[in-house]
């Protein structure tokens, strides 16, 4: 399955699979994942825990643990990332593609001042003097909305609140003007009012800096507000991919529909949860991975795995029950 490569794609992931190597065998955790991210768009990757969202992101930066390998092609700026040498990968990582993580406390070094850590990030990718780097750090902290940044650069991470730490992480990530920012559950550890501030900041930075964002989250509401296009993942596969309005107004895959029906709405109206639970990656069913939780399942569903097909223009679904609307 290959999705048409449109001109102007910034990142193009083709048939990515991620494999866990154990006891001489390879256990696939992510299979046949293909998508592209255009310049300055927000691409949302949504799914429940263990569906392979983060593994996909880590594959792009090639920072997977040693016992996990990725196959396929990842094209970025005319280069194929998976076959790049470690050296050229290192010069790209953090410079052209930057990443922010869920837990801002564990991502910062607790014994170094935030100014020093920011300066270090800047110096590793540009050839400027230390005092210029320091001045730039102050500018960056200001850009991410930290009050009195010239004082805050002397703080240690523990002196900052969770929201402030995430702002520092974002400052570090945008320090070299990356064209792609990977944000992996960037607000999950934050309180709801702080979450709103960080989401607002990401939107603002995206507009100002024309930066594309790969936004990974489990929260459908957040993605409906933030993303331009969305891919829904289940058991290591993309099961539906469409523009954000199309996806939320016209969800086609039974899993997507089930997720939306699981959100609490009117008081007292019982929810329609998806029955059962996510299968273990070592024990996936033969055909459609969602078949055993789906109420449309018939014998064809369990006999072979469906492909991700274009059902209507730019709306892709991995389900044989979906009728083709493309002529």
């Amino acid at each position: 399955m290959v999705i048409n490569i449109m001109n102007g794609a910034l990142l193009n992931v083709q048939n990515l699979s991620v494999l866990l190597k154990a006891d001489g065998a390879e256990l696939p955790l992510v299979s046949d994942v293909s998508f592209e991210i255009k310049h300055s768009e927000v691409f949302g990757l949504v799914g429940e825990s263990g569906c392979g969202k983060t593994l996909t992101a880590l594959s792009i930066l090639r920072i997977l643990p040693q016992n996990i390998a990725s196959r396929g092609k990842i094209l970025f700026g005319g280069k194929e990332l998976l076959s790049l040498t470690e050296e050229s990968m290192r010069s790209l990582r953090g410079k052209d593609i930057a990443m922010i993580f869920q837990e801002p406390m564990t991502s910062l070094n607790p014994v170094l001042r935030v100014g020093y850590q920011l300066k270090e990030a800047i110096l590793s990718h540009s050839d400027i003097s230390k005092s210029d780097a320091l001045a730039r750090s102050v500018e960056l902290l200001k850009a991410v909305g930290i009050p009195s940044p010239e004082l805050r650069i002397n703080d240690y991470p523990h002196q900052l609140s969770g929201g402030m730490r995430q702002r520092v992480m974002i400052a570090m990530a945008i320090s070299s003007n990356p064209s792609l920012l990977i944000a992996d559950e960037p607000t999950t550890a934050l309180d709801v009012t702080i979450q709103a501030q960080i989401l607002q900041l990401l939107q603002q930075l995206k507009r100002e800096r024309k930066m594309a964002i790969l936004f990974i989250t489990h929260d459908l509401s957040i993605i409906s507000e933030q993303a331009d296009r969305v891919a829904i993942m289940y058991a290591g596969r993309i099961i539906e991919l469409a523009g954000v309005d199309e996806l939320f107004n016209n969800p086609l895959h039974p899993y997507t529909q089930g997720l939306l029906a699981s959100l609490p709405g009117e008081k007292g109206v019982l929810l329609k949860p998806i029955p059962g639970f996510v299968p273990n990656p070592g024990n996936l069913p033969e055909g459609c991975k969602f078949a055993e939780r789906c109420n449309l399942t018939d014998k064809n569903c369990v006999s072979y795995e469906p492909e991700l097909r274009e059902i209507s223009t730019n709306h892709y679904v991995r389900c044989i029950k979906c009728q083709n609307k493309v002529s």
Partner: protein
Amino acid sequence: MSEQSLLRVESLKKYFPYRKGFGRTKNYIRAVDGISFDVRLNSVFAIVGESGSGKSTVANLILRLTEPTEGKIYFKESDVLAYRHKSLREYRKSVQMIFQDPYASLNPRMRIIDVLGEPFKIHGIPQNGGLKKNVLDLLERVGMGADSLNKYPHEFSGGQRQRICIARAIAVSPELLIADEPLSALDVSIQAQILNLFHKIKEESAISFIFISHDLKVVRFFSDEVAVMYLGKFVEQAKTEEIFSTPLHPYTKLLIASAPRLRKKQDKSKTGILYTGVSSHEVQSQIAAPSGCLFHPRCPERIAICSREHPQTKDIKGRLVSCHLF
């Protein structure tokens, strides 16, 4: 009103002492600072607030896992703080707790039959038909099968573990269930299963709930009354529909405006109007609590008096609000 009240809390306070640096002066963190509320029979009382607001301390105080600094707790008009040994055990049978993390709240070395059999043994409940039958009944009520009996907690997913925790809590037929963020460790599709299960238990056995959560969607779905907590105090308390349709306190408004909503309609201006009124300030810490109203540094509607005086709680048409604007 008090006839139908199951649990009543009156100006409950819990101050935790701490020392600054090497100083000798003792300071206090006012984790819970004078809150009062009623949990009515067969109703759901929700407490919402951000981390550090003192929600969980309230739960611990009600169960007497920590002793309050001041205040009163009445369960069916009898003084909970006077309970000792036997009466305390009896009380804890009537009031059960479900915790946030189903991975941490089950003993990894106990099989499910032992986990669920323990409450019967501890409270000496007569077992008609044997312990095994009781446990099987429980499992069935929470939607699990007999094949779970001899398994260990690690063999279950998060949602199943939370079901086991719920089964354990309802084993002794409690009258009040305190659920402290029972859904936040679970995935969306599993959250819906557990929410439905809570709903079913409430309908079947007329249990009342204290439901602690930061997720407004869930609170709106499940609760009858809501208290909004900020730095140890209730800033607003009202019926669920009222809070969500016409929030009065600026903090309640901020919380509701901040919660992400599922956007279905094409909305070109979405980035422009998103989160209007979201203040750029952070949650204040208990240690550096501001003077006057605790919320005033973040409040978009503050007036001169807010930084000087703490507002009294006022009754506005049956709703309790503590804000100088009212």
